[in-house]
């Protein structure tokens, strides 16, 4: 069940099958969960489809750099790099980062042009739970590439209360 949202299918059919499988697994999990405000891998797949549309997503070119184990989910350093010559005819247009288990699946959407010189960005994000994060990059030729990373979080973020 962990490789689900991960290698999300390159075709719509594959995607829907994984999403359905997942939804099943998650229904079971949510019976035990005390909070229901989490996004699910299915919600993440949906958020990705909103950005990508019907286009196929291939694995490769994108690299997520994130520590595999973080103590504090409130600030998790993430670096995303995309292999690209960054010329006017061949550059990265955008990089989107998604997560599976925060209250919302979107993390950041960054937009680049050939003037960026290098398609890379670093930021710090919040992670509510141990989960898989997925980065999707759109190239100027319209193709989409992605990478994913598993992060284990010991202290969750986002939903802790001030009590």
């Amino acid at each position, binding site marked *: 069940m962990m490789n689900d949202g991960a290698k999300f299918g390159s075709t719509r059919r594959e995607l829907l099958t994984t999403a359905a499988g997942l939804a099943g697994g998650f229904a079971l999990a949510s019976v035990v969960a005390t909070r229901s*405000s989490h996004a699910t891998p299915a919600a993440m797949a949906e958020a990705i489809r909103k950005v990508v549309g019907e286009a196929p997503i291939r694995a490769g070119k994108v690299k997520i750099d994130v520590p595999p184990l973080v103590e504090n989910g*409130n*600030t*998790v350093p993430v*670096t995303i790099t995309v292999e690209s010559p960054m010329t006017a005819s061949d550059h990265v247009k955008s990089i989107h980062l998604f*997560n599976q288990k*925060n*209250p*919302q699946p*979107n*993390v*950041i*959407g*960054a*937009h*680049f*042009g050939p*003037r*960026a*010189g*290098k398609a*890379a*960005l*670093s*930021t*710090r*994000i*919040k*992670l509510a739970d141990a989960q898989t994060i997925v980065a999707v990059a759109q190239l100027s030729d319209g193709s989409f590439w992605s990478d994913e990373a598993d992060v284990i979080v010991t202290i969750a*973020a*986002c*939903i*802790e*209360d*001030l*009590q």
Partner: protein
Amino acid sequence: MTARTLINVPAKAKRGEIIEIKTLIAHPMETGFRVGLNGALIARDIITTFVCRYNGEEIFRADFSPAIAANPFLTFFTVATATGTIEFQWTGDDGFSATESAPITVE
């Protein structure tokens, strides 16, 4: 409301050199999913957009979500093309807006 910012742009660069830009802004990035002491949800208060312009031309833009950590930190790159200023603009909930700029000399 003025927010404290920290900008790191090299003061000098060679023409065509790829330079790294680092930005940090003080902001709570309240997610809107947390419950406060009175049991009610704390309203969302985040920065939603960041734009960087080099001599007026947009070179980088980012859309933030509540999943960006407090005091948003961003690192990105650009090609040093001409002497001038690099402007940074953050906008967010409740009419939040902050601008900052840094000079750069290109040889």
